[in-house]
């Protein structure tokens, strides 16, 4: 059945995802569960489209977790990370230690396994699944709540804790396996003395931070200058993969490395662009990862050991749930956040697979112990979205205190009411005026030179193409109220308008137009305002011209406004009648005719003085005879 070809595999995975995920979403189960179900369906135990190679796919797809951490880093300003230091070290540390000890204790009490095995199991099962939890939380938009942030902190600590645990496991060996099997991270660096090794590790971390700050941004600037989109994507991928290799070389967690790089780049002007480039890869790989987890669930084993595995899963979830809840309470989390935190993290994680197979290789556990555990971990991961749904729908409404006003303000995101696309001379005037009135807008610009310059002047301008809906989304279009289109290129402006209208119909849009044709096209789009870029300036200059040859300023000023109003109404009429015209030539000829007519009209009547007010011609006509009569009578 497994033809084995790359395309065949890709076809199976992609169709499973494309079918299962929308169905799961429709049922309110979330995408993670959809992927997992898809995995189970195509796995060896249901349809059997894929066989054991699912394991390799899983290892490959774990790279999605690395990318996810990079993206999470991009969303975190360093200052915010510093604020999170206490939950990361405190909450994370306590969670890993307490959960390990309690699981270790339970295993000791309820089984006859040796203490070394029990300890390995404790350490392994204390970890939770970064991939499932972060994906589910961000899909539900809960990542920035207190519970979400704390869950993230714990997961981050666990990602780091894996490394010492990996180093520690071989010491727990109970059976002689000949030579101890090394984990793949055992590389050249292990031959170095411990002091040197620490130095190398520290050096790598520092170099990531320093180069992120001083090297990567200029490099991206150079690449952006080529204006080749795919090159930028390639560079972003290169960055993530490069860090992964580097971190693996020195035996550190690649997720930690890319996370750090993400944090450093969070302040870069290319943040939104990087986000948009990496996001689809991350999404696909994570999806693949979840499918692989689903496919790897060994149903034969589960059927043979139903009772045992049910007890392990139930025990694991309940113990972790309680430990997390108590710790959360101890750290002063409010009820609803604490419930989210506890239910979110009550599962085994993808690291459990790695640690268990490593422990197996090193003779810390036996196959009969490890296999049911691996199955249980996979099941507990699959249960997570369901548990969170249970919490959200059944438990939270009764016990949670949903106090929205208590929620901490989002510090991570730049979320403004107004987005300005195009921040050249035109857009920056708009931005400055808004700023002068206390309204901060999110600025997007496509010209790297311009972005650099404005950044140097202290303005937070983001580099990116606003006609891409994902970039608009990253700029906060979902929550914004108004989009100001001020870009220089007409086609681009129209593209941006189309994207925004399609994906963010709630946004009000006002736009700059350069030519008559743009103006007509934009009027057709039914925007909140279309502004011909030279009309106002030209009119101001015309008014000034009249003043200079002796007209009174007030008269000229009023005439200008009258003219402008008339002009705009006239153009709207042309647009309305434009649809009836068939050919382009006819159309342009008509525009010229209309223009002529407009000019002649103006000469005839429109801006005549008497329409500008304070006209006493008729008063004179009515009262002058009466006054004359009175005078005559007096004399």
């Amino acid at each position: 059945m497994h033809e084995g070809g790359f395309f065949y595999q890709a076809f199976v995975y992609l169709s499973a995802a494309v079918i299962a995920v929308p169905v799961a979403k429709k049922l309110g189960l979330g995408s993670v569960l959809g992927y997992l179900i898809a995995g189970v369906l195509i796995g060896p135990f249901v349809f059997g489209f894929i066989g054991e190679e699912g394991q390799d796919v899983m290892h490959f797809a774990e790279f999605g977790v690395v990318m996810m951490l990079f993206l999470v880093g991009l969303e975190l300003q360093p200052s915010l990370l510093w604020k999170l230091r206490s939950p990361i070290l405190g909450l994370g540390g306590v969670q890993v230690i307490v959960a390990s000890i309690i699981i270790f204790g339970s295993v000791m009490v309820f089984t006859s396994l040796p203490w070394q095995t029990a300890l390995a199991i404790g350490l392994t099962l204390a970890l939770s699944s970064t991939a499932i939890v972060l994906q589910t939380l961000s899909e539900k938009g809960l990542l920035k709540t207190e519970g979400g942030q704390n869950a993230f902190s714990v997961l981050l600590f666990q990602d780091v804790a894996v490394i010492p645990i990996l180093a520690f496991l071989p010491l727990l060996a109970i059976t002689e396996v000949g030579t101890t099997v090394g984990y793949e991270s055992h590389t050249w660096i292990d031959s170095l003395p411990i002091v040197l090794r620490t130095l190398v590790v520290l050096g790598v971390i520092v170099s990531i931070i320093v180069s992120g700050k001083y090297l990567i941004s200029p490099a991206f600037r150079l690449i952006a200058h080529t204006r080749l989109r795919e090159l930028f994507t390639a560079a972003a991928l290169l960055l993530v993969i490069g860090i992964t290799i580097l971190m693996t070389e020195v035996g550190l967690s690649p997720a930690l490395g890319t996370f750090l790089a993400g944090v450093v780049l969070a302040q870069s002007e290319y943040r939104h662009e990087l986000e948009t480039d990496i996001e689809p890869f991350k999404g696909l790989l994570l999806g693949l990862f979840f499918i692989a987890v689903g496919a790897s669930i060994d149903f034969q084993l589960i059927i043979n050991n139903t009772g045992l595995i049910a007890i392990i899963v139930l025990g694991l979830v309940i113990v972790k749930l309680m430990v997390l809840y108590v710790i959360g309470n101890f750290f002063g989390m409010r009820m609803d956040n604490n419930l989210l935190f506890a239910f979110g993290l009550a599962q085994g994680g993808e690291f459990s697979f790695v640690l268990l197979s490593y422990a197996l290789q090193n003779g810390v556990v036996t196959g009969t112990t490890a296999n049911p555990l691996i199955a249980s971990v996979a099941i507990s991961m699959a249960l997570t979205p369901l548990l969170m749904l249970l919490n959200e729908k059944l438990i939270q409404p009764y016990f949670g205190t949903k106090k929205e006003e208590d929620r901490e303000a989002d510090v991570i995101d730049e979320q403004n009411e107004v987005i300005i696309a195009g921040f050249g001379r035109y857009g920056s005037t708009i931005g400055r005026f808004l700023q002068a009135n206390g309204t901060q807008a999110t600025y997007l610009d496509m010209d790297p030179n311009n972005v650099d310059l404005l950044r140097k002047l202290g303005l937070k301008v983001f580099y990116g193409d606003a006609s891409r809906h994902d970039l608009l989304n990253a700029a906060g279009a979902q929550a914004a109220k108004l989009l100001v289109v001020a870009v220089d290129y007409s086609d681009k402006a129209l593209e941006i308008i189309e994207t925004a209208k399609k994906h963010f119909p709630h946004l009000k849009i006002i736009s700059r137009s350069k030519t008559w044709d743009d103006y007509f096209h934009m009027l057709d789009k039914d925007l909140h305002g279309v502004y011909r870029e030279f009309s106002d300036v030209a009119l101001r200059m015309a008014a000034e011209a009249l003043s200079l040859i002796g007209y009174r300023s007030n008269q000229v000023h009023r005439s200008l406004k009258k003219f402008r109003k008339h002009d705009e109404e006239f153009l709207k009429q042309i647009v309305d009648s434009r649809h009836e015209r068939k050919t382009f030539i006819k159309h342009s000829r008509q525009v010229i005719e209309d223009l002529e007519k407009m000019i002649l009209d103006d000469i005839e009547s429109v801006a005549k003085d008497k329409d500008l007010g304070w006209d006493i011609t008729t008063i004179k006509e009515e009262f002058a005879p009466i006054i004359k009569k009175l005078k005559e009578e007096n004399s």
Partner: protein
Amino acid sequence: MKVLILFAHPAFHKSKVNKVLVDDLSELQGVTFHDLYEHYPEFDIDVKEEQKLLSEHDCVIFQYPLFWYSTPSILKEWQDLVLEHGWAFGSQGNELKGKLFFCTITAGGPKQAYQIGAFHNLTINQLLTPLKQTAALCKMITLPPFVVHGTHAMEDDKILDFKNDYVGLLKTIVDDKLDIEKVRKLDYLNHYLIKEEL
């Protein structure tokens, strides 16, 4: 009877009393609330549009805070431009004939300050002379003003009292229940209810 309120406050964002007075007025049945400074930030008053509005209503109210014993400048501009000869006045100008007219004024000082010999030396009614004569020239029926005194220091519940009185007055006018002959003799329109009971 349909009521048109021409509201003029150049610094409405800083206002306290008028904010309450004006709040939700546009929701009232039969009342059109027209905010001149909001509508014409550049003073380019649309004469035809304003005249159309006037024609559609039977009672016209100028509502404004007192500035230099007079209206804010846009209301003067409005008069200059909208009340055209041959439309509002003159032998052919009868469009406003028979319509009611009065002012709703907020003033910082108390009523005692607006007396002959007191701080301001003139009463509100004396200060309104040019406006009353303008209305007379346009053949309108002028009513006494509705005045909120002492806005420089006013408690919130007191503002609400005025608001309730004002809304009550507007409803009475809309329902055609105002005894015009009776209230014309009043000093301020504020007392229309009290006098009714007497």
